[in-house]
């Protein structure tokens, strides 16, 4: 049997494939078993977004910008589904746009199943305006004239004739803009939509990006923020729709605890093996 010191030293050379295997099992088991932890406290920024949508009068248009690609779907798609459900179930109009080329498919994947479930009609209750090049220019142009920026929707229907776009000329006619993003797109919406046109703006971003947007929450340039999978789970809880967000939080809880355990074990090995003294010399 190894002496305790050698055992800890050995810990430092733990095969990484075993770590991979432990993480894979830890993430998969909650999904396969459907094990769900009760939702904890709701973050204030999530609650603010929920309350803002609750306060909108019926048929108010809400714009969602789907600025993410399939790589971020696990974190952001649950937000999109929960938001689409909230907006359409409250009889608000949903206008989908995107600044990224993969966005139209993300929008369809989020809105179509919800609209079908709630009996909402494309062109009347919701519309996917699709992708246009331009980024900041497109955002600014919509502030002046949305139908000029988007003469047709993603299916080729003229926006002039769509009932969902009736009375929608520019940001003055939009109740709220929500940017779901895995890129720096919320920055574009802040600078080119919120600041010049004073439109209410919120965002849903991946967990690693969330820290970038806290300064804009404090200044009031953004009124709400969904922060990664936790934000998605919180929103699902608020709208009463259990989905991938709430289910994913169990897997994320286990994964986070495991990573913390690995960090502790790694540090125990580091200090007990005397490596820290060797490195200090």
């Amino acid at each position, binding site marked *: 049997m190894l002496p305790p010191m050698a055992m800890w030293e050995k810990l430092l050379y733990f095969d*990484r494939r075993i*770590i*991979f295997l432990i*993480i894979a099992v830890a*993430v998969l088991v909650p999904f396969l078993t459907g094990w769900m*932890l*009760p*939702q*904890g*406290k709701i*973050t*204030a920024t999530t609650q603010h977004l929920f309350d803002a949508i609750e306060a909108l009068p019926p048929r108010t248009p809400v714009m969602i910008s789907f600025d993410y*690609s*399939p*790589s971020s*779907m*696990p974190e952001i798609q649950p937000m999109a589904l929960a938001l689409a459900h909230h907006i359409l179930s409250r009889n608000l109009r949903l206008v989908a746009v995107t600044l990224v080329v*993969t966005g*139209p*498919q993300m929008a*369809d*994947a989020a809105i179509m199943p919800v609209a079908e479930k709630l009996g909402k009609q494309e062109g009347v209750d919701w519309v996917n305006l699709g992708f*246009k*090049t*331009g*980024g900041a*220019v*497109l955002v*600014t*142009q919509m502030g*002046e004239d949305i139908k*000029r*920026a988007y003469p047709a929707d*993603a*299916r080729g229907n003229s926006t002039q004739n769509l009932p969902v776009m009736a009375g929608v000329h520019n940001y003055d006619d939009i109740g709220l803009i929500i940017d779901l993003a895995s890129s720096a797109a919320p920055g574009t919406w802040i600078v080119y939509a919120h600041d010049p046109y004073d439109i209410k703006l919120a965002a849903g971003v991946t967990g690693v990006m*969330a*820290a970038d947007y*806290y*300064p804009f*929450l*404090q200044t009031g340039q953004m009124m709400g923020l969904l922060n*990664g999978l*936790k934000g998605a*789970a919180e929103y699902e809880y608020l709208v009463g729709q259990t989905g991938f967000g709430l289910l994913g*939080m169990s897997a*994320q*809880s*286990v*994964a*986070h605890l495991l*990573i*913390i355990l*690995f*960090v502790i*074990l*790694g*540090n125990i090995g*580091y*200090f007990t093996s005397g490596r*820290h003294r060797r490195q200090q010399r």
Partner: protein
Amino acid sequence: MRLQIPIAIGFLAGFFMLVQFFVPHQFFQQSYLELFDWVKIIGAFALVLGLGSLFRTHIDKIRNRRPDHIYSFVTLISFAVMFVFGIVYGVKPHTSFDWLFKNVQTPLEATVFSLLAFFMASAAYRTFRARSVEATLLLTVAVIVMLGRVPISDYVSFVDFHEASEWIMSVPGMAAKRGILLGVALGVVATALRILLGIERSHLGGGGGGSS
């Protein structure tokens, strides 16, 4: 002339946008909207240029039998397949293009992204050491934020990890981020002025920086 004309166009366009911001005359407002259409058209051409560059890079790689050139084949074939299905059947829901997007591109991208979890766990185990006061501080903060991001920490009664994590994000984290943002904003203004005045020319090609 190859440099002077683009610099002159850049100066005139930039100067016009600056002037129109401060002059609410109808001529400026209309021209401003007109320019937006131009920018979107130029943006579409940029996509074509990007495609041309992609093709050139991968064809060169295949022609010269560079290492891993097999992946260039995969890129070009994938592009051709998506292009043909998109052009022939359209990109609307329930088309072949849509099917390929949902059943090939989406799982592939999600798989690559999900590998991060494995590498993060392994990296945390091997490199996240309390080697110094700063490293210990970073480690402690990371643990608090990680616990604050999951509901399981609500079962711990003696520390409110949720609130602690929010405080870290919205006070010290935000202060640091704001400093970075101010620095970036000043850099953007300086670069914009350099481009407008023709001092910064690296965007015109040739790889050279600006002359001072």
